C-alpha cells in the first residue's frame, strides 16, 4: 500500500496517474532530518513492486483520502499569451514556419538603426543609402533611434591579431526550439558551482538557490487556456549578464561589477547582503544565502569532497548567481596562454551547455563572426528577453518556430 500526494498536471492524459520510483532513500541529510515523505523525500512507490512481477503490477486500486499534503513549488502556474506575434513584450516568442518565412518586422535579425546608420549583429556599422543618395532609412523603418544589440564595437577594441586574450566577449544563446524542459542544466549547474540544497521548508518560502531555472509556461489563446491540453513552453533562465546591468549601480559596496569580457561579476567577499541587486534584477536570477545553507559541510568536513574545488563556497548573507562558469573560462584561458594561442571556439563549455541533451545552449566568444554563438546571435530567430528593459543581455534566446501539420490545425 502506498499513500501518496497527488498533483494535477494540465495536459496529462485522462485516467492516468504517474507514480515516480526513486532511489529508495527514506531519510535525508541536514535539511531532511525527519523521515520522508514529510520533509520532501517523496513516497515509496517500490512498495507496489514485487519480485514476482517487477515490471508490471495489475489489479491496483486507488482510494481518495481526505489528507492534505503541502507541496513546495518553485513557480506558480503561469500562463502567457504567445499568439500576439507583434508583441515585443512576450517573454517566449514563437511563430509558425509560414509566418516566419514570410518575414515581417519581428523576424528581422537584430540589426538596429543607430541614428542613420545600420549596426549589424557583429557590431559593424553600415551607413544606409536612402533616396537621393542621402543617408536614409530602410523601407518600413521609422525614424526612431534604436539601440544596438551590444555596446561592444569590435572596430573600437582592435583586430583579433592585435587583441590580447582578455578581450573575448562571452555570450550565450539558448535555443527554445531545442529545449525540452528536462532541467538537467539546473542540476549540472548545481553540481558544478557548489550550490546548496536548501530543503523543502526553504523552497516553500521561495528560497531555492538554483542559478539557472527552467521556467514553464502554459500557452493560452486570446485570454483562454485549455486545461485539457495546453501547449507547454520552457525557458531556461540564468543570469543573462546584462551589459547595462540594473544590479550594478545599486550595490552600495560595488560587490557586483562588470568585467572587460562582458561578464557581470559577483564578488562574494565584498557583498554585505543588502539584496538591492536582487530586487533590481528584472529576470530575478540572483540568489541570496538567507541562512547558513552549508552548515552541514562545516559540521562534517569530509562532505567538502563533493564540492568543486574550483568554485568558492558562499557563506551566509552573500548573494550569488550564474557566472558563465567563470572557473571554466579561466581554466581554458590559462591553458591557452601557456600554449601561446587563442582560445578556440567551443573550448569553453559551461556546465549547463555540457549537460544539455539537445545542445540547446551555445556559448562562446561573440566577436568572431565564424563562432557558433555569433552565428546564432545573427539568426533571425534571435531575440532579447525583456528587451524593453534595455539591459542589453549577453544571453539571448532563439525564438521557437513550429511547423504544425495543417491538418492538425484544422
Amino acid at each position, binding site marked *: 500500500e502506498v499513500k501518496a500526494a497527488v498533483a494535477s498536471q494540465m495536459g496529462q492524459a485522462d485516467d492516468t496517474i504517474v507514480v515516480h520510483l526513486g532511489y529508495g532513500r527514506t531519510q535525508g541529510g541536514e535539511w531532511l532530518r525527519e523521515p520522508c515523505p514529510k520533509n520532501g523525500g517523496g513516497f515509496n512507490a517500490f512498495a507496489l513492486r514485487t519480485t514476482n512481477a517487477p515490471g508490471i503490477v495489475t489489479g491496483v486500486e486507488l482510494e481518495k483520502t481526505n489528507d492534505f499534503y503541502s507541496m513546495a513549488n518553485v513557480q506558480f502556474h503561469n500562463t502567457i499569451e504567445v499568439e500576439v506575434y507583434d508583441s515585443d513584450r512576450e*517573454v517566449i516568442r514563437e511563430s509558425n514556419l509560414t509566418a516566419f518565412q514570410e518575414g515581417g518586422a519581428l523576424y528581422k535579425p537584430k540589426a538596429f538603426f543607430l541614428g542613420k546608420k545600420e549596426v549589424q549583429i557583429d557590431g559593424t556599422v553600415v551607413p544606409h543609402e536612402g533616396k537621393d543618395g542621402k543617408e536614409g532609412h530602410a523601407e518600413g523603418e521609422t525614424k526612431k533611434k534604436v539601440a544596438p544589440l551590444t555596446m561592444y564595437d569590435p572596430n573600437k577594441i582592435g583586430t583579433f591579431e592585435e587583441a590580447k586574450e582578455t578581450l573575448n566577449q562571452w555570450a550565450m544563446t539558448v535555443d527554445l526550439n531545442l529545449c525540452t524542459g528536462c532541467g538537467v542544466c539546473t542540476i549540472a549547474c548545481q553540481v558544478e558551482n557548489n550550490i546548496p540544497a536548501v530543503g523543502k521548508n526553504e523552497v516553500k518560502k521561495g*528560497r531555492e538557490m538554483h542559478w539557472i531555472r527552467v521556467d514553464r*509556461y502554459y500557452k493560452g489563446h486570446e485570454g483562454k487556456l485549455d486545461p485539457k491540453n495546453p501547449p507547454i513552453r520552457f525557458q531556461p533562465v540564468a543570469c543573462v549578464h546584462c551589459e547595462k546591468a540594473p544590479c550594478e549601480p545599486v550595490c*552600495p559596496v560595488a560587490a557586483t561589477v562588470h568585467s572587460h569580457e562582458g561578464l557581470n561579476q559577483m564578488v562574494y567577499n565584498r557583498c554585505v547582503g543588502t539584496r538591492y541587486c536582487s530586487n533590481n534584477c528584472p529576470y*530575478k536570477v540572483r540568489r541570496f544565502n*538567507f*541562512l547558513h545553507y552549508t552548515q552541514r559541510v562545516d559540521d562534517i568536513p569530509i562532505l567538502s569532497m563533493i564540492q568543486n574545488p574550483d568554485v568558492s563556497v558562499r557563506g*551566509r548573507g552573500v548573494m550569488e548567481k550564474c557566472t558563465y562558469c567563470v572557473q571554466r573560462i579561466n581554466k581554458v584561458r590559462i591553458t591557452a596562454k601557456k600554449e601561446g594561442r587563442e582560445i578556440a571556439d567551443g573550448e569553453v563549455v559551461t556546465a549547463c551547455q555540457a549537460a544539455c541533451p539537445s545542445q540547446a545552449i551555445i556559448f562562446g566568444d561573440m566577436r568572431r563572426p565564424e563562432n557558433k554563438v555569433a552565428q546564432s546571435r545573427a539568426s533571425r530567430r534571435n531575440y532579447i528577453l525583456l528587451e524593453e528593459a534595455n539591459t542589453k543581455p549577453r544571453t539571448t534566446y532563439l525564438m521557437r518556430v513550429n511547423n504544425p501539420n495543417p491538418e492538425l490545425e484544422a
Partner: protein
Amino acid sequence: MAHNKAEAPIDKELLTGTHTLADMDRIVGDIVLDPSKHNSPPIPIPGAKLLGIGFNASPWWLIFAMGFGLLNLLVVSLVVLLAKGIGIWGNNQPVGWGFDIINFVWWIGIGHAGTLISAILLLLKQKWRNSINRMAEAMTIFAVMCAGIYPLLHTGRPWVAYWLMPYPNILAMWPQFRSPLVWDVFAVSTYMTISIVFWFVGLIPDFATLRDRAKNRWTQIIYGMLSMGWRGSARHWQRYEHASMILAGLSTPLVLSVHTIVSYDFAMGIVPGWNVTIFPPYFVAGAVFAGFAMVITFAIPLRKWYGLENLITMKHLDWMAKIMLATGLIVFYGYIMEVFYAWYSAVPLERSLLHNRTNLFGAPYSWAFWLLILFNGLIPQVLWFKKNRQSLKTLMWVSLSVSIGMWFERYVIIPISLTRDWLPSAYGFYSPTFWDFAMFFGTIGLFLTLMFLFLRALPVINIYEMKELVHQMHDADHDDAKAGAAH
C-alpha cells in the same frame, strides 16, 4: 524687553491661564525633579481586581513596563537574527526587502515632524512650536535610532556593514556612490547628528534651570555638567540664539532631503511600482504626515497626565491636525496619481501594477492598498471639521489610523511591487514570520522606552521658550493696557 511691534501679535490662545515665569519652571521642571508627578492619575490595571492586585498603576510605569518588555523582545530578536541570519524573516526571492525596509522607512518618516517643528517653524517665527518642539525633536531622535537598526542589521553580513561608509581602508575601496543605499548612509547619519546637536543645544538653558532647582546633590551635579556652565548672561543668550538659527538653517533642508533620499531607494530601481517620479515629494509629505500623527498621539495623553493642558493647548492640536490634513491630502493625491499614471501610460507592466493594487478579486495583496486608502485617505478627511479637530478622542483615533496607514503605504510599495514584477515566472509571495513582527514591535518598545525615559529625565517642554512666550504675552497685555489706558 520692548515688545517688537513689527512682529505679529501673540496669539493669546497659545498659553491659556495666567502664568508667571516661575510657573513654567515649576510645571515642566517638576516633571523631572519630582518623582511623585509620575504617579497620577492612577490607571486601574484591567483585570487587577480579578487577580487580586491591590494597586493602581501610574501611567508612566504602565507604559514604560510595556515598552521595556517589548525592548527585551527586540534584544532577543536581534540575537537570533545575528546568530541565524536573515532567513528567520519572511524575505525570499523575489521579495528581497520586506518588513525590514518597510519599518526602516516608517520610522524615518515618523522622525520628520520633529525637525519640521524645530527648524522650519523656528525660521518662520511660528510661536506655537514652543511647547511641542522639545518632545517632537526627541521623537525624531528616537525614531531615527529605531530606524537605524534596520539598515545595519537587515544586511546579510552586518559585521561588515561599515563598508557602506567611506573610511580609509587597505582594500582601496570606496563605497559605490551611485547606489541610493550609500546616499541613505549620508542622509540618515547627517539627520541623526544634526538632530542630536540641535536638540542638545536647545536643552542647555533648561539643564541650567534644572540644575538650579534641583534639591538632590547628584541631580545638581549631573544637570550641572550637562548645562555646560550656562550662566544666562547676555552673551550666552546671544550665542544661543545664533546657534539655534544656524542649526535651524541646517536642519530645514534635511526635512526635504532625508526622505527624498530614502524615496530614491525605490525611485532609482527599475521595479514597476518603484520607478515613480512622484516619490520624492510624496514621501516627504508622507513623512510629515506620519510624524505629526505620532506627535499628536503622544501629546494628547501627555498633556492630560502631566497637567500640561495650558501649555499644549487645543490651539496647538488644532494646528497640528491642520498640517496633518494638508500633508494627508498630498499623500492621497500621490496614491491616486500613481494609479492614474499606471493606467494612462498603457504600458503593460504599469497596467499590471494597477491590477495588483486595486483588484480585490485577482491580486493577493490588494487588501493592503484598500486599507491604505481607508486609513490614510478617507479617515483623515474628518479633520476638515472643526468639531473633530477639537475632539481629543477623534484626534487620537485619526492619528493612530494615520500611523497604521503610513505603515501600509510602505507595505503596498514594497511587497506588492516585488511579488509581481517583470517576469511572470518569478512571481512570488511574501509572508512575514514571527521574528518580523517581533522585531517591529521590539523597535516600538525601544521607542517607548526611550520616550518615557526622556519624559522622566529631561524637560519635555522647552522651558526657556515657554518663558519667552509668557514674557511676550505680558508685554502684549501691557501694550493693550496702555492702549486701553490711553483712551
